């Protein structure tokens, strides 16, 4: 028993049995994927039609998986809450996708991508998973080109690449600022082809609300038709969650408004361990909020930092317009603190530095929550035309949102939550701790450790969906032939439906005086404050004390108009907030227990003398997989010890 | 194949575009011939006669004329039938109007349907008036087109019907020519200015040219 707080029982978590990834083969890291594929049992092609696989989500991971599994002959039943599978939030990714093609002959290789990813993840990811990702990256590009993804090309007709996110090789393939959109449409089109062929049964505007576990195996889901409100059960031989990350716990994030954590959280409640929930990524170049009405934040490509200079006034509370602040009264703080990397330091460092100067009272714009990203020097050096060519669409987007012209007035930026590295714990086969339940893409925790590199999210989503899962799920299906059919009358299904219906009915009957959004905003602000860019023992305890109170108030004062038997967006929202109110607690506990700084998780107590993140490898070189016990009750921690054979942990240094 | 073609909205549009171009071609020839009216009855009536012996001696008397008439009739019917069917479909595809409406298409675009109906009615009247003479105002004389034309434009309603119809024709041609080019796949960024210029030129020349005849009669240039 580790006791932390005298107020919250939740902090008194127990440490259970260690957990291990038993599916990754031993042997040289570069042979493990081949070995695993060879050792995995196969399902006879003629028998695949008899197997049903549920896929929840249609983003890069889900869309790719649904299409590929259907191509292999499985019967796929797929779900998305959006009105069309084409709208999954992968579509909003801007920058690009990494692949170790080495088309530039600039020294890139699979091993270098592997190395960069493990190091970038601050040594909290599994070597075997990351190496596989680097290997597969090459095939992804081939696949996407064959599908007609219009990647940027050079005049010779070959693919263009650029350097991204501070790496020294140009391995990022892109389609202007809409790489995510183009890759997603590729997957969507492949999925559409399978829908037309009758191999995928697509349920749009249908949200998974619970997992059905029968005899310890995932056998189906409970889902609500968002148009009619009808609650139905769907059954399968395996369930794949590709439902994305949980960044919307923070209320304000770059996630889509309806992205949510319900699928993963309900799976967690049914026995799937949740790993490293406190590993969340903050992106430094987002457009700051303009007021209390702000509903979400918009990210601008990190590439802006290649030519923009970041500064704040030297004096506190300097409210002069930027043009009136003379050069010697400006603090180009990144260039000052990190002279060698300057404005190009990694995301987490840039973000924290911005927070620090704003905390000092030197922030700019409404509420002092912003720093300048100034292109005046770039325009003077390259000419306005060149800047326009390079960043025109981003400048336009900025101007549309803020009504300020960034060619004349420096942009204002501020960090925002953008990606969650944590997620459901999975083994090398991407299977969770519930047999038959798989998690892919951002929904799992596997490849990015404590920090994700730029242009790696698209790579991982597609690797999982196109290549990894379709290989590994065969093994599970071949080894676990389900003889017994499960239907809606099975006690486990009846129970899951009843619980779901009760929860929705309860949300509708509170009839208080506060909207679902007001609670979402409250929990989001709390988590941002105490479990955001910088975390402290004291702050996290405060948050952990406060969360149960908010939860109590939620069930006392919530107001949801309408009924459950109709299209009811307030009800959808309220039901998602129920899960945020629990997930936020686990995030804070995870952040509290990990008394080290690593990647996106910065504990103020754990710093080097010059203020950089200090990892605690001796104590914390593990992935924290949490087992659910009950709402508000202390969870059980299972540690997966990480070993580094190929990339040896070093302290990052960018000074 | 032909059935599939005709059943597609694109196929019908292509039929409309192609028949429209045929009719524009005819209008150009028709206008050139009509201009002879400014050179006196002799020349104009001789032209009227030539239309009947066109293609001789290969073609029998009036065969050339009838071939032209059949082609034109087919074009008009196909154009009208596809327009009718497409319009019905279009109206069905947007059953509910917006509460907040605002006109925004160009006038020529908006008036294609009604303009087309007006032109259809005009063609019937025009044939009855000057080809068969059924509704002609003053004693229709077979073989004396010059006098027939002068008679028609000596009545106020003859002038009104004709001039209104020619204005409608101009607008129809203006959007129709450009539209046909798009439907037949001939438009693109670089060619667009030229296509629009041709459409405008065709509309102006055809309208002004045809209207010059009643104006000529009214002003006494043609009498």
């Amino acid at each position: 028993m580790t006791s932390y707080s005298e107020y919250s029982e939740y902090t008194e978590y127990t440490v259970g049995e260690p957990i291990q990834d038993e599916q990754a083969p031993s042997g040289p890291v570069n042979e493990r994927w081949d070995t695993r594929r060879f050792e995995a049992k196969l399902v006879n092609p003629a028998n695949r039609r008899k197997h049903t696989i549920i896929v929840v989500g249609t983003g890069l991971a889900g869309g790719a998986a649904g299409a590929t599994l259907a191509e292999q002959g499985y019967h796929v039943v797929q779900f998305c809450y959006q009105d069309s599978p084409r709208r999954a939030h992968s579509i909003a990714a801007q920058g690009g996708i990494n692949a170790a093609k080495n088309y530039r002959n600039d020294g890139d290789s699979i091993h270098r991508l592997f190395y960069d990813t493990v190091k970038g993840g601050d040594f909290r990811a599994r070597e075997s998973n990351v190496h596989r990702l680097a290997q597969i990256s090459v095939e992804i590009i081939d696949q996407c080109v064959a599908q007609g993804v219009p990647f940027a090309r050079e005049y010779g007709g070959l693919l263009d690449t650029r350097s991204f996110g501070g790496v020294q090789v140009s391995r990022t393939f892109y389609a202007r600022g809409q790489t995510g959109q183009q890759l997603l449409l590729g997957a969507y089109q492949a999925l559409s082809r399978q829908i037309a062929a009758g191999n995928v049964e697509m349920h749009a505007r249908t949200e998974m609300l619970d997992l059905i576990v029968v005899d310890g195996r995932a056998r189906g889901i409970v889902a609500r038709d968002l148009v009619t409100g009808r609650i139905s059960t769907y059954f399968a031989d395996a369930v794949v969650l590709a439902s994305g990350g949980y960044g919307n716990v923070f209320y304000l994030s770059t996630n889509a408004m309806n992205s949510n954590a319900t699928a993963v959280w309900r799976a967690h409640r049914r026995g799937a361990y949740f790993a490293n929930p406190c590993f969340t990524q903050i992106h430094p170049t987002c457009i700051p909020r303009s007021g209390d009405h702000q509903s979400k934040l918009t990210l601008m490509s990190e590439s802006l930092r290649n030519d923009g200079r970041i500064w704040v006034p030297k004096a506190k509370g300097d409210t002069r317009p930027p043009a009136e602040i003379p050069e010697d009264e400006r603090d180009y703080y990144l260039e000052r603190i990190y002279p060698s990397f300057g404005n190009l330091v990694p995301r987490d460092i840039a973000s924290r530095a911005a927070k620090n100067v704003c905390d000092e009272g030197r922030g700019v714009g409404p509420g002092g929550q912003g720093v300048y990203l100034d292109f005046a020097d770039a325009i003077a050096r390259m000419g306005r035309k060149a800047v326009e060519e390079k960043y025109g669409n981003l400048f336009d987007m900025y101007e549309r949102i803020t009504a300020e012209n960034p060619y004349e007035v420096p942009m204002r930026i501020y960090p925002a939550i953008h990606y969650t590295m944590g997620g459901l714990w999975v083994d090398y086969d991407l299977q969770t701790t519930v047999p038959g339940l798989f998690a892919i893409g951002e929904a799992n925790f596997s490849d990015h450790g404590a920090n994700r590199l730029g242009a790696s999210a698209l790579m991982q989503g597609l690797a999982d969906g196109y290549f990894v899962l379709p290989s590994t799920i065969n093994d599970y299906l071949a080894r676990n032939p389900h003889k017994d059919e499960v239907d809606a009358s099975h006690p486990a299904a009846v129970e899951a439906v009843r619980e779901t219906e009760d929860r929705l009915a309860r949300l509708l009957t509170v009839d208080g005086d506060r909207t679902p959004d007001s609670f979402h905003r409250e929990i989001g602000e709390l988590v941002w404050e105490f479990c955001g860019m910088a975390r402290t023992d004291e702050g996290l305890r405060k948050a952990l004390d406060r969360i149960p109170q908010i939860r109590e108030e939620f069930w006392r004062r919530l107001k949801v108009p309408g009924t459950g038997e109709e299209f009811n967006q307030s009800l959808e929202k309220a039901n998602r907030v129920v899960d945020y109110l629990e997930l936020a607690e686990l995030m804070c506990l995870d952040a509290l227990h990990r008394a080290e700084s690593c990647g996106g998780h910065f504990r103020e107590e754990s710093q080097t003398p010059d203020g950089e993140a200090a990892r605690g490898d001796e104590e914390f070189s593990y992935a924290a997989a949490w087992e659910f016990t009950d709402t508000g009750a202390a969870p059980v921690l299972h540690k997966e010890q990480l070993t580094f054979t190929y990339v040896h942990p070093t302290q990052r240094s960018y000074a | 194949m032909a059935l599939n073609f005709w059943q597609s909205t694109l196929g019908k549009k292509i039929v409309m575009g192609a028949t429209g171009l045929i009719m524009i071609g005819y209008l150009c020839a028709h206008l050139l011939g009509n201009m002879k009216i400014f050179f006196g009855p002799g020349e104009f009536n001789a032209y009227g006669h030539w239309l009947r012996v066109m293609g001789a001696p290969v073609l029998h008397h009036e065969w050339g004329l009838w071939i032209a008439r059949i082609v034109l009739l087919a074009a008009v019917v196909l154009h009208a039938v596809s327009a009718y069917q497409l319009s019905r479909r279009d109206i069905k595809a947007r059953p509910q109007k917006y509460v907040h409406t605002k006109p925004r298409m160009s006038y020529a675009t908006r008036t294609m349907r009604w303009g087309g109906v007006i032109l259809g009615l005009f063609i019937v009247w025009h044939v009855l008036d000057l080809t068969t003479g059924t509704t002609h105002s003053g004693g229709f004389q077979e073989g004396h087109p010059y006098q027939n034309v002068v008679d028609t434009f000596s009545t106020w309603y003859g002038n009104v019907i004709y001039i209104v119809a020619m204005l409608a024709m101009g607008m129809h041609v203006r959007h129709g020519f450009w539209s046909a080019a798009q439907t037949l796949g001939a438009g693109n960024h670089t060619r667009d200015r030229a296509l629009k210029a041709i459409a405008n030129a065709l509309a102006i020349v055809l309208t002004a040219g045809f209207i010059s005849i009643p104006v000529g009669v009214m002003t006494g240039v043609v009498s």
Partner: protein
Amino acid sequence: MKLTLRVWRQKNPDAPGAMATYELDGVSQDMSFLEMLDVLNEELIVKGDEPVAFDHDCREGICGACSLVINGDAHGPERTTTCQLHMRSFQDGDTIDIEPWRASAFPVIKDLVVDRSAFDRVIQAGGYITAPTGAAPEAHATPVPKADADFAFEHAECIGCGACVAACPNGAAMLFTSAKVNHLNVLPQGSPERETRVLDMVAQMDAEGFGGCTLTGECATACPKGIPLFSITAMNKEWLRATRKVKR
């Protein structure tokens, strides 16, 4: 800012709908249009009224979910998506009419939410390149001339929001369909299915009950991604070519 909002309210697909009027105060110029509606909905919920249902998701102009006709314009007065429209485009005291996409192929589900699944079925009819996972050749095996790649990209930008259909007086889906046809047909990877793609997609578009094109240009004017009207011309050309080459 103080605004008068006139909003289409319709309980379900079968119920009759009508415009309802709401007064909204305290609107900031910096709000996006959807944030303004959020404020309205928060007020409605607290009052115990049903909030206005509308589709939205990414709120950064790329997912294509948002779909409002604002004062008669699909996505409102600016050339962008509704989510990227800001209240500074309006004046204090304005009356704003908000209606759903109108087309028989896009039936209303509730209030401002419509069913756009017809678009998915048009894509399913052929808006893809058959490239089973794992069967792909090396990416550099087939160079694509930059002009073709740019042309493909220009059309691939379509977000499938349906503004083109909403703006078209005929409820036609030509711009949507042509964007995908052109994206895939210009690429060497798309050429094996070039003819069947355009024939099948156009046939599906017709079967969904979309109207025909009268080249009014409303679609291209409303398109938040600037898909050009000539996209339709190019598809017409592809279709004509395909009817000549494929005997069905």
